[in-house]
């Protein structure tokens, strides 16, 4: 039994490695399109730079909600990095479509875990994305280096990287969980729309959530969406530090564990509900 387990582990690793390699090759098919797309993704940032420049010109204040004009530009640049980690385009719709269309049964009859497969597929996507997007990202950050106050210290940088990696996993499990609603509902597009809306607005992608005060600000800060964009950017800019940073990372980790459990539970019970007909 123990020997079987020892033999099973390398072969399993080999399977996952093969899956990862296939996914990477698949993602590299349209690499030119991919690189151009990455560079273009920064175009909305140009309009944001001019918009906030005009807002600061109109207000004559040095800071808005604790952010200077330079902070705002740096914030939007950093949210682009954070969203590059946490965004999972097409994951939820893909899962729901596979459930509805019956494609999901391939995971039920083959010895491959669906959630693991999808996670590896996204890891491959992100690896390729950063491989191809590194040059456009480096170019944009180099051109915009004047908006930053230099590199943060090692501890802040470690916390930033940790928040990005957890942001990736939170983004994945949140989207996968939404997709798995397809086991219970035939059409999940409207729910997915609400989810996308929440993600866009509550993640801090549009504006730093510090701009919101009162109960609305409090509500935004209780949501896991902030870890998808706002939280890593705020760490890098030093807006969250000390005990608040440690507490924030702990809460992010707790959200991640809760989402993994929820996703696994949804898949477990969803598969029990699933009925596939035909060949």
């Amino acid at each position, binding site marked *: 039994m123990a020997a079987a387990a020892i033999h099973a582990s390398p072969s399993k690793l080999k399977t996952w490695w093969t899956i990862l390699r296939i996914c990477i090759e698949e993602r590299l098919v349209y690499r030119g399109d991919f690189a151009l797309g990455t560079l*273009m993704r920064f175009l909305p940032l*140009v309009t944001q730079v*001019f918009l906030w420049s005009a*807002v600061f*010109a*109109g*207000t004559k204040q040095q800071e*808005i909600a604790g952010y200077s004009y330079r902070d705002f530009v740096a914030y939007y640049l950093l949210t682009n990095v954070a969203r590059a980690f946490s965004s999972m385009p097409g994951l939820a719709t893909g899962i729901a479509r596979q459930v509805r269309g019956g494609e999901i049964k391939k995971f039920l009859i083959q010895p491959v875990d669906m959630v693991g497969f999808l996670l590896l597929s996204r890891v491959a996507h992100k690896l390729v994305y950063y491989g191809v997007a590194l040059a456009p990202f480096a170019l944009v950050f180099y051109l915009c280096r004047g908006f930053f106050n230099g590199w943060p210290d090692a501890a802040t940088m470690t916390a930033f990287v940790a928040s990005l990696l957890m942001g990736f996993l939170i983004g994945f499990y949140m989207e996968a969980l939404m997709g798995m609603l397809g086991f219970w509902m035939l059409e999940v597009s409207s729910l997915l729309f609400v989810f996308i*809306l929440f993600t866009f607005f509550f993640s801090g992608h549009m504006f730093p959530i510090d701009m919101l005060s009162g109960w609305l600000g409090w509500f935004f800060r209780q949501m896991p969406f902030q870890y998808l964009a706002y939280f890593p950017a705020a760490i890098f800019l030093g807006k969250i530090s000390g005990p608040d940073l440690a507490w924030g990372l702990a809460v992010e980790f707790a959200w991640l564990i809760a989402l993994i459990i929820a996703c696994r539970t949804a898949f477990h019970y969803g598969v029990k509900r699933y009925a596939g007909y035909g060949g």
Partner: protein
Amino acid sequence: MNSELPTRYEIRTERASARSAPSRYGAVFLMFARNSLVRDMTFRANFIIEVISALSWMSMYLGFYILIFEYTPSIGAGTGWGKYQFFAFLATTLFVNSIVEAFFMPNTEELSELIRSGGLDFALLKPIDTQFLVSLQRVDWSSLANFLFAACLLGYSLLKIGHVPGWPQLLLYPLYVGCGVGMLYSLMITLAATSIWLGRNQTLYDFWFYITNFSRYPREIYSGTYGTPLNIAFTYILPVLLVVNVPAWLMVRPLNAEEWSLAVYALVATAACLALSRWVFGRALLSYRSASS
């Protein structure tokens, strides 16, 4: 049965050919619009959800700008874009975008797929202008919800500004909204037509969204070392800054000499954009190789 009598089909065909081209195309478009409405009404719950979706996005954007105006009295110093002037600008953006999204976007999105799958063959075989057919065959009625939202927002903003536009402005406003739609459509169909050469043009399609993003803000914000060249390029070369700015100026304030000259230029630019996109579409069709046979 008397064989000399024309059949119902022959009568219909004769009637159709007796019509002038604009009225025939008008009738075909009405048929497309009707069919789309019938399809939308078949799935009413879905239609209602789509309307709510469209309105939610707009409410969210409006919320964002309300938040911005909590911190500043105007967008830019001395630009004249105060809170309600900017909301009138936003309403104009909504008018233009809702028309583009209702009539053209679902079709140009489909064009790339038609080219890839060879489905364009069927469009080419029909006895009607291909660009007309592929641009207007489907109407997304739910996108027009934003049109009503925009009308309410514009009315409310004008009330708050206390500015009553004169008759010339009221008459010119729909004309310039139409010009804005024409310019955006030209860019969209040009990019969609490039699918024939490129096979896949997702990036170029994204490019449309990113470029039109520039049109969503007042022209005055693009100033300074980097802003001025952008302002000139997006006004005179790729005139996306005229799409919303010109009609919005008409509604919120009297135009100065430069703005009037840009208003005249917008008419010329629209005609040029439409002609150029027509030419590109025609050239692209010449390179089309059916994928289905």
